[in-house]
């Protein structure tokens, strides 16, 4: 495991008023790795990736991206550092063509700021082809696309910008089975291209096929981390249920748990 770290987050604490969403989270992503960030609703998954993408500022803790230390980020900075967020429909502008959405916020322009429209269309076409999305013209407004296709468009942003880390926040929510399959294929393609991703989901059956490592969040803490090679989907399900019920990992899996520091917190 001498891989380079893309992202390290140390002791992240985030409070919303009197509610503590994250209670000292340590989290890292290595090069060319797919991390499945799982946990029940309200565990803090979304908050964690939003901090990573600079939408929220952490109250305490530090973020190290490619060796550079940050107190907090902002979306623009995160982009410049090669982090792309894929969100269920939320980032796309429905009335605008696919190519504009792919380049949204990162338009190719000349020195005066005028758009290089043909170049952007060409690159968009090439990236969509890599994902097998050639059915719709690049001029098609995004609102005409199905949910899976939209995710494909968002993921092609990651390919276009040579992002190192793609954060997929619940990318399969509200998608049909076929489309979910599609999205999982996209994630595999990202890994084949040497990129890393964080796959956030509460559905372990969506995460399991693509992730290399699972990070399980519960009530604002990382309670467990496992390599996929150590577990079957059934094991993972059992662990998840146990955490939801008792807040702890079953004894027989503890020796596989990479998060050995767990247990000295306030849980008894």
């Amino acid at each position, binding site marked *: 495991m001498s891989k380079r770290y893309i992202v390290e987050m140390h002791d992240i604490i985030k409070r919303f008023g009197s509610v503590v969403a994250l209670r000292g989270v340590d989290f890292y992503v290595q090069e060319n790795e797919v991390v499945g960030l799982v946990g029940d609703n309200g565990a803090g998954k979304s908050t964690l990736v939003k901090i990573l*993408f600079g*939408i929220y500022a952490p109250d305490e803790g530090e973020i190290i991206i490619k060796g550079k230390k940050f107190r907090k980020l*902002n*979306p*623009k*900075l*995160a*982009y410049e550092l090669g982090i792309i*967020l894929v*969100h269920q429909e*939320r*980032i*796309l*502008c*429905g*009335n*605008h063509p696919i190519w*504009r959405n792919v380049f*949204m*916020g*990162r*338009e190719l*322009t000349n020195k*005066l*700021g*005028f*758009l290089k*429209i043909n170049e952007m*269309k*060409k690159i*968009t*076409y090439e990236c969509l082809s890599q994902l097998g999305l050639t*059915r*719709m*013209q*690049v*001029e098609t407004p995004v*609102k*005409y*696309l*199905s*949910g*899976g*296709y939209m995710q494909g468009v968002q993921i092609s942003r990651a390919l276009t910008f040579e992002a190192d880390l793609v954060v997929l926040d619940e990318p399969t929510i509200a998608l*049909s089975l*076929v*489309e979910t399959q*599609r999205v999982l294929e996209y994630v595999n393609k990202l890994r084949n291209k040497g990129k890393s991703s964080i796959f956030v989901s509460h559905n372990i059956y969506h995460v399991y096929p693509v992730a290399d490592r699972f990070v399980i969040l519960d009530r604002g803490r990382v309670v467990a981390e496992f390599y996929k090679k150590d577990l079957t989907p059934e094991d993972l399900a059992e662990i998840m249920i146990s955490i939801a019920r008792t807040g702890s990992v079953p004894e027989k899996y503890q020796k596989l748990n990479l998060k050995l520091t767990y247990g000295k917190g306030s849980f008894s």
Partner: protein
Amino acid sequence: MIESYKDAGAARLIKILSEYKLQIIITAIFLSLWLVFYIINPPALSNVFTYYSIASVAPFTVLPALSLTLIIIAGEIDLSFSSIMALGALITALTWQALGEASPLGVILGLLAGLGAGLLNGVLVCKLGIPSLIATIGTMFLWRGVVLVITQGFSIPLGMYRGSAIFNILVGRVYGVPVHLLWTIGLAIVFWLILNKHKFGAYIYYVGDNRTGAQMVGINIHRVLISLYAVHGVIAAFAGIIDTLEMATFWPTLGDIYMLKSVAAVVVGGTPVTGGVGTIYGTFIGGLILEFIEMGVLTSGVTGFWIQLVHGIVIIIALAAQGILRRIELAKVRLLRILTEESEEK
């Protein structure tokens, strides 16, 4: 050679037609109105002076409507521009009065006043989070009040400066064509370029279409909106100045009639107040339509009281057409979503 990401021939034509359907509809409305008025009064509509007269008044409605279009696309509104028109023109008129000559300085100060008023709108909306409708109603009263208090309701005659260089540059005539129409067309082209070919235009659309998304990709929404309000302030002041110069008199009520007319021009031009979509071309033709109706109603030989009635009818027709188009659009969205979903099953 046909590049693979483009499609050829007939399919491309159909796509262009569907992409520009709003522009085509608005142009058709304009032409049919012309036809109606022509049938009612052929001699008036054949006379070139009719068109000169439209050309000399249309810019006052169209100019502020152009920058207003950008604000509405970004999902906000500005109602204070009618008062900013008066403010800018007043500053120009007062400067000229003080200097005793038609100095470009007066115009520059007038435009700067517009810039300041626009920035104030932007700050109220963005930094204080006041809904733009309310904020700009406030500044509308504010600047109108400032103008009325300063002038005490009196007009300022500027006829003596006619013929000066600045007059000719702003509202002169070139072969009978009003120069301020050329300014309007020029600015319309600039706005069109910015909106469709420039990064800033793309940001305007994103801010109106999906503000959360725009923020997430790192677009500075406040900067976009404040710049838009500032530009709108300058353009409103400019429209006020050319209006004043064209009339050769500053009236404290200047701009009042243009407020709703400019908003109507944007709406008739196919830009919905919900934001995210809209065109400069539509607004330009929309403004012309409203001016055209005024002229057409008068040349038809009925009283001027009909103007508002016809305006109302055209605005409602335009809105109804947009409503129907939107429904067709929704049906299309549903259909295509199902189609793209199936296509992935292979």
